[in-house]
């Protein structure tokens, strides 16, 4: 990579293979789900027009399913169906059900009663009335429902990448994590275009002259089936072990790219969301995952970190990064935040994370216990001398840090605090900071270097072997480029790490990443 800023077009050309695969996966995923949703929803919709007493219950359940947040729904699917295509398809089809059932019901009940009566009176059987009269006449309304479902599904399908089902979400969420706008757009633009395209095509189908309705009704299932088959096209190559990496890890030099270039690691890789990755490893859906070295789930799920013997993962020391303007506005802020400097080492952080991730204690509780134990705790003063806005990324450790900082500020100053926790990635957090929507958030030196500053390879290589050099470099650059100050590091190093189940690693004698490579290369 040279210094030249890559354009979106260049990115898309460079990644055209992946883009095509992801687009096909996306289309496939959308239409497999849609096809099944039609297969389920249409008969169900017809059924409740016949047995009206069930209509409330069926529409109610479908409506509730619709309101379950998509990530949560995907999360529910993992214990039941594991990761990959199956749970994604089920989740997507559940989302698509409501509009299809509701419009089938509305469409059929909306057919003129006189026409239905005439059909019966002519001597048509119930099925003949349904297929010759009710369905054809309800078809425009049913099409409208399928159309709504399609657009919803194209959108929600981006989330399928969270559970290793592929699709354009891989680029979108990878890009958000990597602060790579080109990558986000390379996923988002095709996804939006797909939604618009399918909506347009279905709208044409919907407006089709009543005369051609019969042909239209016949082509739709075929079309759905054809598009569904796209999902089967990009078949994954197999390997002995299966890896699941976060979208962020996939695109990073200090992640999968480094694994490939420096270790020459060849492993079947799925893209998966951080929130479900550990569990998937625990449940043997995945063998190797890209985690964080301080993650509490490491302990909870009995995983072991593989030694990075070629040093591709740079140091990730955590420290709060603050807007210069905020430091001026809140004179006491720097001093208070530095109270935490060197207070939390790796094992302390893992233990804290374990409490939230595995014991399910609230981040506030964990933060308070920690402060009390370290004799830093002071009760809140409930002052109102301005409000400090704290941001955090969307994982447990950041929640804990945000809570600790919040308590420190409230206890030691008269500032009030508002927290904006759960910002979905480096890019979102950092943009919030530069756009003055938050005053500070905890960041990691490695992330600051590789995801935000993105200097040349040479610079990276010269820095990453040393904790202090990395810190000094990012501190200097942030100051001049963004007017953002790195305060003192908190102490722990939350670096990327490859991890495996303890038992499996022991079984195969894998301790380092090089061991892993050798194991994979053995025939």
């Amino acid at each position, binding site marked *: 990579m040279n210094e030249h800023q890559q354009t979106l077009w260049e990115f898309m050309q460079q990644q055209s293979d992946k883009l095509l695969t992801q687009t096909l996966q996306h289309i496939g995923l959308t239409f497999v789900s849609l096809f099944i949703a039609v297969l389920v929803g249409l008969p169900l919709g017809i059924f409740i027009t016949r047995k009206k007493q069930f209509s409330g219950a069926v529409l109610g359940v479908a409506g509730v399913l619709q309101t379950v947040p998509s990530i949560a729904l995907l999360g529910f699917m993992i214990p039941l169906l594991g990761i990959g295509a199956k749970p994604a398809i089920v989740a997507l089809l559940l989302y698509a059900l409501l509009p299809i059932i509701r419009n089938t019901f509305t469409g059929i009940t909306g057919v003129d009663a*006189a026409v239905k*009566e005439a059909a019966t*009176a*002519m*001597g*048509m059987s119930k099925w003949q009335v349904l297929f010759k009269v009710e369905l054809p006449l309800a078809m425009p309304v049913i099409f409208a429902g399928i159309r709504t479902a399609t657009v919803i599904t194209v959108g929600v399908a981006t989330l399928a990448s969270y559970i290793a089902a592929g699709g354009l979400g891989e680029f979108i969420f990878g890009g958000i994590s990597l602060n790579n706008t080109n990558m986000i757009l390379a996923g988002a633009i095709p996804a939006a275009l797909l939604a618009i395209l399918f909506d347009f095509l279905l709208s044409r189908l919907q407006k089709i002259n*009543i005369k051609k309705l019969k042909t239209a009704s016949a082509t739709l299932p075929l079309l759905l089936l054809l598009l569904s088959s796209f999902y089967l096209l990009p078949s994954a190559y197999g390997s002995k072990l299966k890896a699941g990496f976060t979208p962020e890890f996939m695109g990073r030099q200090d992640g999968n790219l480094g694994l490939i270039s420096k270790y020459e690691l060849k492993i079947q890789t799925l893209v998966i969301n951080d929130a479900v990755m550990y569990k998937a490893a625990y449940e043997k859906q995945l063998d190797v995952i890209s985690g964080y070295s301080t993650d509490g789930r490491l302990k909870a799920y009995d995983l072991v970190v593989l030694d990075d013997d070629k040093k591709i993962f740079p140091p990730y020391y955590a420290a709060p990064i603050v807007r210069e303007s905020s430091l001026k506005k809140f004179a006491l802020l720097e001093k208070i935040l530095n109270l935490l400097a060197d207070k939390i080492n790796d094992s302390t952080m893992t233990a804290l994370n374990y409490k939230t991730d595995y014991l399910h204690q609230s981040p506030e509780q964990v933060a308070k216990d920690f402060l009390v134990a370290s004799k830093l705790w002071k009760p809140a003063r409930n002052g109102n001398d301005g409000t400090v806005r704290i941001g955090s990324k969307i994982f447990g450790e950041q929640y804990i840090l945000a809570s600790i900082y919040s308590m420190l500020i409230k206890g030691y100053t008269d500032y009030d605090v508002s927290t904006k926790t759960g910002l979905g990635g480096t890019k979102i957090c950092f943009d919030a900071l530069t756009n003055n929507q938050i005053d500070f958030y905890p960041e990691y030196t490695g992330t600051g270097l590789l995801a935000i500053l993105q200097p040349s390879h040479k610079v990276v290589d010269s820095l990453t072997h040393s904790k202090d050099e990395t810190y000094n470099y990012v501190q200097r650059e942030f100051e001049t480029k963004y007017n953002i100050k790195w305060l003192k590091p908190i102490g722990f190093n939350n670096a990327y790490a490859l991890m495996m189940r303890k038992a499996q690693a022991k079984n195969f004698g894998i301790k380092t990443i090089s061991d892993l490579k050798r194991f994979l290369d053995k025939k």
Partner: protein
Amino acid sequence: MIKVKHLSKNFGKVKAVDHISFEVKEHENLILLGTSGCGKTTTLKMINRLIEPSGGEIFIGGKNIFEQSPEILRRGIGYVLQNNGLFPHYTVAENIAVVPQLLKWDKKRTEKRVDELLEKLHLTKDYLHVYPNELSGGQQQRIGLARALVADPAVLLMDEPFGALDNVTRSKIHAEFKALDELKRKTIIMVTHDVQEAFELGDHICLMDKGKIIQDGTPAELLFKPKNDFVKEFLKEQRLLLEFKTITVKSIWHLLSNEEKTEPGPGILANYNDDLWRVLERATFSNAKRLHMMNLENKEVKTVTFETLTAAFYKYKKQQAHE
């Protein structure tokens, strides 16, 4: 032809139809007349089992209809609805061909029959591939009638078939209806709330109220021998008109004296079987002073004036009342 015995239908506690019995002879037109909610439509719909009765029996051509499958039964009964109930997604030709398709007729036979009906109903072939929403109300109703007649069923049920039409179109269709030879071979039960229509088209009227038949008789019987005050009251408003429409030249023939010699002048030929209303209408239209008419039974010819005709009409009415 059609026999209805103790037919009832309850909707919850409401007795929509309450133990009614009537009979329709072959090729007869029976009118079920009454205000809305009197049970006439429910009665009609029980005859092709669109509504299953709560009790009673119905025989068509001697067969108990509840012993046949409803689909087979319905394919043998023509049905015409008030709002025509044409299938909006079918062309005129396809609409008419619904029953032949269900009966699995071959294409040629269906086409031939559709063409034949269109001609009889004064519609050109241009309409065959047109959709119902492109037709006028009168045309739609004709297609609805064609659809009911296409398989030449012996029985025709009509639920306020002309109710949605304007007056001009309606009287035009009435005239066609009476002239259509296809219909003369049918046993027809028609529901209407329009007294005039009932009297014009019915051989025989069942006046219904609150699920019961109040009087079952010919138009003349209803007019001149009302069973009770309800019947009288029901016919009160249009009484004179109905009387003129019910009494035919034939029925007052014996009261007419031949006045050929006393009143010279232009005249028209009045049909023996026409009702007086029609005769007077035609006479007024052509400004005729004299009416020539011939008894179709014995070929006797009479020429009368308006006054004689009116006098005979009143005399006839008086006789009926005293009979």
